[in-house]
């Protein structure tokens, strides 16, 4: 491509009104800054609500079982909140020095997502019953016998059917997300290869 050709293409590329007009972009910019601030507030609001709920539940029931469940649930929600914030910041900004690091970071993020999905799939049958027993124990006083009776009653209720249906839907969504993440990993591996090819060519290999 000759210099005049390049200049002509560059002028053509930058020519005319932008694909989106300024008013629309301004609206998007305002929306982005609002969303950015909101994301911060939501993280903390959700975490505080969960902690208040677990502490409140333990205080109301006065049961060792409720307390024993509240502590790990509080720790888990704190850890998850911090972890999610860090992951989101990294995933959004992709603040890396070069494309190699960028692709590697993206691959690590995708692999972490895949692991999170796998953990999610494993945790659904583990944590959900724990949360359910926690809820039942608050109502029934916390003794293992009462909890078991209340649990059996709950299992026969329409709410149980709805709950199990929701859990199944969650599992299906997690499986879909897993498949998408696997496709993303494959594309990133292809991209890594493309950058390597360019770099090799630039080094004269």
């Amino acid at each position, binding site marked *: *491509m000759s210099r005049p*050709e*390049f200049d002509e*293409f*560059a002028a*053509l*590329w*930058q*020519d*005319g*009104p*932008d*694909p*989106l007009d*300024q008013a629309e*972009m*301004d609206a*998007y*910019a305002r*929306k*982005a*800054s609002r*969303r*950015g601030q909101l994301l911060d507030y939501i993280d903390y609001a959700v975490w505080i609500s969960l902690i208040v709920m677990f502490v409140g539940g333990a205080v109301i029931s006065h049961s060792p079982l409720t307390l024993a469940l509240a502590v790990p649930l509080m720790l888990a929600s704190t850890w998850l909140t911090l972890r999610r914030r860090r992951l989101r*910041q990294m995933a*959004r*900004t*992709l*603040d*890396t*020095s*070069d*494309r*190699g*690091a*960028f692709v590697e970071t*993206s691959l690590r993020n995708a692999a972490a997502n895949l692991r999170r999905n796998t953990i999610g799939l494993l945790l659904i049958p583990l944590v959900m019953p724990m949360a359910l027993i926690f809820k039942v124990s608050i109502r029934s006083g916390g003794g293992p016998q009462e909890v078991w009776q209340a649990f059996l009653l709950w299992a026969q209720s329409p709410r149980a059917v709805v709950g199990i249906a929701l859990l199944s839907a969650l599992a299906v969504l997690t499986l879909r997300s897993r498949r*998408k993440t696997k496709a*993303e990993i494959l*594309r*990133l591996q292809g*991209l890594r290869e*493309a*950058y390597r*090819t*360019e*770099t090799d*060519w*630039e080094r004269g290999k």
Partner: protein
Amino acid sequence: MANNQGKRQLFEEVSASCTGLISRIALSYEADPALRRELIQDILLALWIALDNFRGEASLKTFAASIAQKRCISHVTKRAREPRQVELPADLISASPPPDEIALRNDQKKRLVESIQLLPIPQREAIVLAFEGFSYGEMAEILGITSNAVMLRCQRAKTALKSIMEQRS
């Protein structure tokens, strides 16, 4: 770290001065207008979050281009499925009824955009930055490679682009 007021000012500056740059970078990666709008919003949110780390070592334009390119690449790799070829609107440049000259230019631009979208990502990001008027030094900063490597990559991208455009004409 920029305080909230400073961050807001910086963000206003970026969104006022880099509008065209951001939407054109998005155009080089996403042909579907609805998905492109989503992508632009995603880039703006990423810019808002990333401004916490802006130290002023590079210009705001370079910073915005760097974030936009990375978000676009990420968008491409996260696609639910491979994109179908979306026909770009014929009036990509002007919405007014085009006289012959404008129609010809619209057609050329459409062909250019579609050809850029067909380039491999490493070459695509280099040629788009070159068309946007970034110097080799600035491009090296954005792409994280040496100026020499940028020059070579641009050369390859220009050759590839010309060949695609010739095939399509």
